[in-house]
């Protein structure tokens, strides 16, 4: 079977809208959390990395009668960008039954629903908690293949990407528009506050002073297809190939990671094996790295074991864009694809003193990639783990 490649990217984050703004933002390595716009956010730490006001999509407020909130609007904007990037005309000419959509989200259009609650009845039955983000993308494009919303919390869109690859390899779809979206949610913010898992200052994974994570909102969407299909339709480029994946579940605890890292290590090894990548071939890691106490230690130790050392550069994405929840896996994969495509690992945000238990390499200066593969980790509540290996690709 031919490679499954990423041929289009779309992204909306605290760094702005569009791939160009995102790439510039990665190199600038500057961002700051802001107070969330949700009213009545009565909690100790009500800040996150928000999409800049000037980059918020203008709508739509509804599509085909389905009311849309911030999460669906982000997904639609990122999908539009990804489709345009991948060659909108040749994608539009495809049999719509061969185009699938998968958009993961945890809280979906929470801003919409949380706005209804203090205001009284919604006045509509056209509502679903998570699925509208996928439905609005499929409806906009006219895709008639499977339309799915995998909600595996912070590893969800990583799973969505590998399910998309499975759909292509099994012949169920030729093209999948796939990614994740997350927007500010009063409920999610309040629960993380109550769990004591929210850093009051900023997201600083692997830092000595880290005190939890800090959410980021946005959407990351990709167009994926087989390399052969991309060549046949004249796709402009392939950013990277989805070369390997490893799924696992800790089956240990609702929120805490399994402390030995056995299952996340299995996922990493499986992904590398599928990709045919030796540890020395890995140019960089985009870790799960949330800033929560145990996650960062266990992930660091397991990375050192799996990669046979601690010299592989780790790109500390969440220190810049925050923890984007269900979109985090897609953000990691999209970022990894850009790093491989440009052959550069941007410099990391300076997190201050690094926790000596987190022996990962966090260079603050940009450097050329040394290796053909990028490893992406995404973990979640419930111990739902996924590792992806992306590989340099050309059409």
């Amino acid at each position, binding site marked *: *079977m031919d490679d499954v490649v990423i041929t289009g990217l779309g992204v909306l984050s605290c760094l702005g809208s569009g791939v160009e703004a995102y790439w510039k933002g990665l190199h600038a390595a500057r961002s700051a959390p802001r107070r969330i716009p949700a009213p009545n956010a009565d909690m100790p730490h009500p800040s996150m990395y928000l999409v800049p006001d000037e980059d918020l999509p203008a709508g739509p407020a509804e599509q085909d009668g389905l009311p849309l909130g911030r999460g669906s609007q982000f997904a639609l904007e990122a999908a539009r960008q990804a489709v345009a990037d991948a060659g909108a005309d040749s994608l539009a000419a495809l049999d719509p039954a061969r185009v699938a959509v998968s958009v993961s989200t945890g809280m979906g259009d929470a801003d919409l629903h949380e706005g209804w609650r203090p205001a009284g009845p919604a006045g509509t039955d056209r509502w679903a*908690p998570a699925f509208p983000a996928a439905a609005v993308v*499929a409806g906009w494009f006219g895709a008639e293949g499977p339309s799915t919303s995998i909600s595996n919390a912070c590893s969800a869109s990583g799973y969505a990407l590998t399910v998309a690859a499975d759909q292509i390899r099994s012949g169920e779809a030729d093209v999948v528009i796939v990614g994740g979206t997350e927007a500010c949610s009063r409920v999610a913010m309040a629960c993380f506050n109550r769990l004591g898992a929210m850093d009051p200052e900023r997201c600083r994974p692997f830092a000595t002073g880290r005190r939890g994570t800090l959410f980021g909102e946005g959407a990351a969407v990709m167009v994926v297809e087989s390399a052969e299909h991309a060549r046949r339709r004249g796709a402009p480029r392939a950013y990277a190939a989805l070369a390997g994946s490893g799924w696992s579940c800790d089956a240990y605890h609702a929120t805490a990671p399994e402390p030995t890292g056995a299952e996340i290590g299995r996922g990493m090894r499986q992904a590398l094996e599928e990709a045919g990548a030796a540890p020395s071939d890995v140019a960089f890691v985009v870790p799960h790295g949330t800033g929560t106490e145990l996650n960062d230690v266990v992930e660091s130790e397991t990375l050192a074991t799996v990669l046979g050392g601690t010299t592989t550069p780790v790109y500390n994405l969440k220190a810049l864009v925050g923890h984007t929840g269900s979109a985090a896996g897609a953000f990691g994969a999209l970022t990894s694809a850009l790093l491989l495509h440009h052959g550069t690992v941007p410099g990391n945000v300076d997190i201050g003193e690094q926790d000596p238990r987190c022996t990962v390499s966090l260079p603050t200066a940009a450097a050329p990639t040394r290796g053909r593969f990028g490893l992406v980790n995404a973990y979640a509540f419930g111990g739902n783990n996924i590792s992806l290996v992306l590989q340099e690709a050309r059409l």
Partner: protein
Amino acid sequence: MNHRNTTDLVVTGLAVVEAEGFDHRTALGRRGYKYLPLAAQYFLAAARRAQDGPGEAAREATDPRRRAATVGTNSAAVALHAAMDRTVLEAGADDLSPLTAPYFSINTYITKLAVEQSLKGFNITCTSPRTAGVEALETGVRSLAAGRADWLLAGATEAGLPPGAPGAAHSEAGAVALVLERAEAVAARGGTALGRLAARTFFLPPRTAAGPDGARRAADRIAEALAALGHPEDGDAPVTAVLDDSPVGRAVAAALGDRARPVPAGAGCLAPLRQLAGQLTAGPGPRAVVTAAAEGNVGVCVTTAAAPGEPAAAPEERAAGRPATAEQPADAGR
């Protein structure tokens, strides 16, 4: 990864749990379940019942890293989110219970199950109105075909919607759980199967459904799905349609015509799987469930119930006319 060219899966257990009269102390145990959200309680109870008898031993005989679960839901967390939000609005986040706070995340609803039954292969939660349970089956079967696990617990769960919430008038509550295993493994231990199933989903854009071509488009796509799933083309096999009154639901209803037995849809994704479970226990023969939601998602599931006591045949014995097979291209190695 353990790639296989074809995967013949059989259903070896199923259970339906109704919310009415459900008591977690009776269904699950006196300690440890009080703070588990209702939908998680329902699904855990259904999962256990689906493995009554030899099912538990079959699970235990499978490497924990090769056991997996997929579950569909639409509104399992809605009532909890509403209650949490009310607490934040009235008293602030500090008044939230730390015991229930993790459950704001819908994927934690199968964590207790994964921990109790050591399901380390993967857990996936699909979310959509009406079709999420079918998606859970589709995703789970596809993942087993890709070699990601050998033993699958799949199903759907919902909790009741709070009064005033959109869709509350059609609220659903309860769970359906099914166990799927490789026929080869079941046959090797001399086990029996309830039957086979296969599922597909597609999307019918609401504006297409509402247009003059909507019913024809729905008919084409349903026919494609049924054919791909091995449903007999003679039109005699029973079809149950779980539909709402949306343009998408009406287009699908028109496409199916008189051949389908209509069943009203609820707000969640439970009704289609209840119908599917009924089909697997209704006597031998092929049947189908078709369901759709206003958002555009459509699910098609074909079941073939086995005769009572029928052994799970080895794959080579069922090579012809097998309805419930997930296929991977021969060169699908990654």
